[in-house]
């Protein structure tokens, strides 16, 4: 499902203008990463997608729905939102109940709910923890419960706010796996992240925000190579991209394989001279 943002401005009641004229279209099935410095407006922007915030000026369309005309409860059938801090969204006595809550609220049939819950639990590797109280789990697993409870709602759009914060390498790989699965299912995924290596390896389109405006927007390969512009919003290019640049590679590299290929090519080229 498509997201359309037209000249969006948002001012907090304190007078702080957090978004200053944002226009963007995110197509159905796109996987987009939003990057930018702390306070750039990333969370403020995505909180408009499910109606938690309403534009001061401009509009946000979720498919054909203007968020001004639909309640947060209604928008929840189209936009799933995984909070940065899982403790802000978990409240049930056990994992199974927590994950069932969303799809049940959306009024799906029992069979459909069972199927969605089973699938979400399997994808997040929680199938053996359904009877555990979420607060008896480590923060890592609580994060997976938060993911599962949103995925189970089967919304066409899924938002992740800093999914890899405080996660170890094993769990970052699990989260990347979940996002890849959503991509194959044709979901629109929007992810806020400071983990630029994670961004490079899992997203095709990158939007960089700075002081409430769009600084850069385009294919990850193009955007992540623009070291000087990214520096304006305190984003460093991925480690291997930086290394490739320092070594004088012509191409912008994003992954280990790309890096090693470029390295091999540059060595071959220098030997044939």
């Amino acid at each position: 499902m498509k997201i359309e943002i037209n000249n969006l401005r948002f001012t907090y009641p304190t007078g702080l203008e957090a978004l200053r004229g944002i226009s963007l279209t995110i197509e159905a099935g796109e996987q987009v990463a939003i990057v930018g410095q702390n306070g750039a407006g990333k969370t403020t922007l995505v909180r408009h997608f499910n109606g938690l915030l309403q534009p001061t000026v401009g509009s946000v369309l979720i498919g054909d729905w203007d968020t001004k005309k639909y309640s947060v409860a209604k928008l929840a059938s189209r936009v799933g939102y995984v909070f940065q801090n899982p403790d802000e969204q978990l409240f049930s006595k056990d994992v199974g109940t927590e994950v069932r809550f969303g799809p049940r609220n959306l009024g799906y049939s029992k069979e459909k709910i069972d199927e969605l819950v089973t699938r979400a639990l399997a994808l997040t590797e929680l199938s053996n923890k359904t009877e555990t109280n979420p607060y008896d789990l480590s923060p890592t697993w609580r994060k997976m419960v938060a993911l599962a409870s949103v995925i189970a709602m089967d919304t066409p759009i899924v938002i992740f706010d800093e999914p890899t914060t405080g996660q170890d390498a094993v769990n970052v790989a699990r989260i990347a796996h979940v996002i890849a699965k959503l991509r194959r299912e044709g979901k629109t995924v929007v992810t806020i992240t400071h983990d630029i290596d994670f961004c490079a390896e899992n997203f095709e389109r990158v939007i960089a925000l700075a002081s409430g405006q769009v600084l850069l927007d385009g294919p990850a390969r193009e955007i992540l190579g623009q070291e000087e512009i990214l520096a304006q919003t305190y984003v460093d290019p991925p480690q291997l991209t930086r290394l490739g640049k320092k070594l004088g590679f012509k191409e912008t590299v994003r992954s280990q394989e790309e890096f090693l290929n470029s390295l091999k090519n540059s060595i071959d080229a220098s030997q044939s001279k």
Partner: protein
Amino acid sequence: MAFINLQNVTYKYPLTKTPVLQNINLQVNEGEFVAVIGPNGAGKSTLCYALAGFVPHFFKGEISGTIEVDGVESSKSTLDEWVLNVGLAFQNPFNQISGAKYTVFEEIAFGLENNGVPREEIRPRVEEAMKMTDISNLADRSPYSLSGGQQQRVALTSILVMKPKLLVLDEPTSQMDPIGTREVFGVVRRMAEGGMTVVMVEHKMEWIANFADRVIALKDGQILLEGKPNEVLTSDVLAENGFGISRYTSTAREAKKRGLWKKENLPVTLDEAVEGFKLG
């Protein structure tokens, strides 16, 4: 004598079946900056709580062995006395912000007020601490109106302002952009140079390699490895045990297999990687 001295520390929370820390022996010198790394569930936060006195004074549970900081044994002290010397910044800044104060400035002054620091001393100390972490511009904002990374800076500042002898930081940059991260590591390094002892849990290997004196790798409540940053962070053992690894290290390891990395040591930082790959 070591400033921090942990002898055979084993600890179990009241409701857990297996110990979260197992037979930990750790000595840290005054002014040393030690980074603690490990997969989720390794016991990193619990180690922070043990150093900060929350384990066992607040969390109870069963503890054996001894925890000594600055010559005082934790079990013979109270939490009130302990926190005068040791500051802990929690992993989630939300858990730390008092909720009792309307502005960032007041939040940072809160600890000093509680300790009965004279009024005329509070203002300059708060201003100085805010300058160090570059948040002077947030002074009048509500702590709750801030972004995650900004809240982390406030949480860190409210500890720094207390000038503890031991600074314990549990993933202080997890929600920060690279500039924030760089500043925090810079501030912490300066503190260590000024004699403050620092124990910091972190996942950002490149930064650890650039700034820390020593690295402790924890897994399943035990110390798996410890030593100089480059030695520990490039060890094969880490890769095999689910630790996060710098892309420079993992890529050079693969390049080495293909004959594209000639140096003996693997890199952790950009500079080390550039130097090694240039040799081709």
